[in-house]
């Protein structure tokens, strides 16, 4: 295993609560070199597919590899952009439609760095991190979600 000491666990059980996000923002108010935060939130959509509505997504992951990939995305982002800090949280298990499953939080002295970094992080996560999503329908059938 590589760099186990510095690899954080990005996963949280179930949905990410708005209060958790507020807490995270509040913690940054002592960092007075920050001028700009950019936050991305992924929310589960109640998509209608063949007349059936998605009620939740059940997330699973190749956790060890996923945390390693999140770590690599994090390192690459810090090397490309001038950031003060970065936090990533992703849900595992069931997240209902309307609830939040991904929380990416980047902070910088200046807005342009934060905005460019956030876009990069979100795209990299979608492509590189082995997280899987089972879209559950109201009739208890399901289909597997694929990022695009």
């Amino acid at each position, binding site marked *: 295993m590589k760099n186990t000491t510095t690899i954080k666990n990005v996963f949280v059980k179930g949905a990410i609560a708005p209060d958790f996000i507020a807490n995270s923002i509040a913690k940054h108010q002592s960092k007075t070199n920050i001028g700009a935060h950019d936050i991305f939130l*992924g929310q589960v959509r109640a998509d209608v597919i063949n007349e059936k509505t998605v009620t939740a*997504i059940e*997330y*699973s*992951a*190749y956790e*060890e*590899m*996923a945390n*390693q*990939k999140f770590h690599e995305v994090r390192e690459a982002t810090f090397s490309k952009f001038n950031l003060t800090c970065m936090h990533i949280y*992703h849900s595992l298990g069931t997240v209902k439609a309307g609830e939040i*499953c*991904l929380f990416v939080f980047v902070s910088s002295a200046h807005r342009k760095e934060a905005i460019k970094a956030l876009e990069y992080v*979100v795209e990299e*996560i*979608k*492509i*590189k*991190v*082995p*997280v*899987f*999503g*089972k879209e559950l329908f109201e009739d208890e059938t399901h289909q*597997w*979600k*694929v*990022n695009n």
Partner: protein
Amino acid sequence: MSLTIKYFGMLAEVTKCNEELIEVNECTIKELTSKLLEYHPDLKSKNFKVAVNQSLVDEDILITSKDEIALLPPFAGG
């Protein structure tokens, strides 16, 4: 040699297991994949990538007995 193969998401659904132990001779990822498709014909219709020791790799690389092998369906994070 013995190898543990991990399956995730829709692939675990098809193989009906999260991981399994198989016996193979020294081989490439490509040869291993062919073998797995023989064991689990339903995998043929699925789109997947192979991770060795938690990295996606070229299908020509050789597998050693200490490798951690995983079959990964399309990602859906976020």
